[in-house]
């Protein structure tokens, strides 16, 4: 998402996405722009260089990463927008990608709106969990960190007719031997994004649906273990210091509900 600049601001902060008409129909033209400016931008680049765990957030790096990830995810059978840059070279100049236009609301908005019936919600989350789990399994089997979504949230999934299309693949983790910790991190990010959009009761119900449909419960358990039950100092400190500690819909509250959902599903409690 872009952090829009105020009118009259001479900076360009955040990507721009436009509809562009072509002979083949309407496509998406995505122009990559910096996330930040000034000291924050440089501090971020420095931290990235020091950490070196992910691809950089420079405009060029995000542009290259997204094009690579779209190709890798598509080859793995994941539903992502088609990269049409080669088909429309006249529209590609500078850090620009041409993408298939996928029409539909964002899954995060749909789940948060409360407009779905119970059955629709079950179908939708079941479908999502199956595709989600399949991608996680591939990432672990192939030891390919690129198949883990670095910025995972239900707001980065478009609900198109018959499709759940993942968007925003501008950053990726660098290759590593074990990608399971990255998968658990993505799971936590999704759970947290859901917690921001629904109330506690709804979240508990939704998590039970997700747990029931997710193919590998050990990964969900690992997410809980890693973040909630971990004796590691960093997580103990994080739990203690986070402002949302103790609130049901914060990160740890949501993960506690995930643990409850895992227990409930394991005991076949409806």
């Amino acid at each position: 998402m872009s952090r829009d600049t105020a009118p009259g601001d001479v900076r360009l902060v955040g990507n721009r996405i436009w509809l562009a008409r072509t002979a083949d129909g309407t496509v998406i033209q995505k122009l990559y722009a910096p996330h930040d400016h000034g000291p924050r931008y440089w501090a971020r680049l420095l931290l990235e260089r020091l950490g070196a765990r992910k691809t950089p957030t420079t405009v060029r790096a995000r542009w290259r990463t997204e094009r690579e990830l779209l190709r890798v995810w598509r080859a793995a059978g994941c539903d992502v927008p088609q990269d049409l840059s080669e088909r429309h070279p006249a529209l590609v100049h500078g850090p620009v990608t041409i993408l298939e236009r996928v029409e539909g609301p964002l899954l995060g908005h749909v789940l948060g709106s409360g407009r779905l019936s119970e059955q629709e919600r079950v179908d939708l989350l079941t479908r999502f969990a199956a595709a989600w789990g399949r991608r996680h399994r591939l990432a672990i089997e192939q030891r390919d960190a690129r198949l883990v979504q670095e910025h995972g949230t239900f707001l980065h999934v478009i609900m198109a007719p018959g499709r759940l299309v993942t968007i925003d693949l501008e950053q990726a983790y660098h290759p590593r031997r074990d990608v399971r910790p990255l998968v658990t991190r993505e799971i936590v990010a999704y759970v947290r994004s859901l917690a921001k959009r629904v109330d506690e009761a709804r979240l508990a119900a939704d998590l039970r649906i997700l747990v029931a449909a997710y193919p590998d419960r050990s990964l969900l358990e690992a997410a809980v273990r890693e973040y909630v039950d971990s004796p590691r100092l960093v997580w103990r400190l994080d739990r203690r210091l986070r402002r949302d500690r103790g609130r049901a819909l914060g990160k740890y509250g949501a993960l506690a509900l995930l643990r409850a959902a895992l227990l409930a599903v394991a005991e076949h409690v409806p």
Partner: protein
Amino acid sequence: MSDASPAACPPPPRPEVAPVTVRLEDIDRDNMAGAGNYLWKHRLPCGTDVVVKVYYGSRSPLLYLKKSFGNVFLTGRSSHMPKRRCAMEVDCVRTWERHGFRCFGLYPQVTVEGLPRDGYMAYEYVPGRHFRELFKDRKIPLEERMAIWRRFVGEWHRRHAAAVAEDDPRLIHENGDVKHVMLWQGEFVYFDFEMIYTAGDIRTLVGREICAYMRSVGRFFGDELYERMTTELVEHYPDPALLMSTWTWAFHDPRPFTRLVRRLDYALKPKNRKKHSKYEVALDIKRRLDERSLTRARTA
């Protein structure tokens, strides 16, 4: 609208003129232009009207040298010297026409006794209507004028796309504004290509040209038409990212030194913060493009 690369088109038909030599004293030397050049309309023995453009204008040689120095060493443009401008204009006309854009036809077979051959050129006389008058003409319904503008925007983008695809600054209208386009027989006719940019990223030059055109729209047509024509531009220009190059030119030139100079130019010169300055036009186009961006819609 198509994003396909523009195909080369044959030059449009124009009156055939046999080789002819004209004596300088036979030309009625009423100058049709300003100080930079002499433009003389002349009827050839075959009855065809031509315009003889003499690049040695009334300016002093020192001024030509000064302008050339500024162009070549400071602003990254081609020389202002008469012979160079003549050669450049001929080259640009041929380039534009090869891409299917109508310009004043060249009649190199028309020679003028008493003038240095590489300092003048005979051009087709085109009695079209300048944009400057056409869009101000309230006798033409506004919607009709806007339809012409929309058609122009499509052709404008086609030229910009060709310039970017071929990385050819000759396809950028260095002195582009509403004074240098006319409508004739349903076609847009472009003129004044004496100089080109020789330095700079081609996308940024596209942005500069758009800013220059839209600044002239604001200056000559006033706020009301500027608003409408800019809205039409943003809505119908087929490549929003290329249109955003207006902002790139004004505030984010890829060359750090140029960027700094432009920042200072914007900050220090009050005229550059007026509503229809090139910088403010760039900001206005950026604001309109931001409003059309789906990221903003989703955030909202």
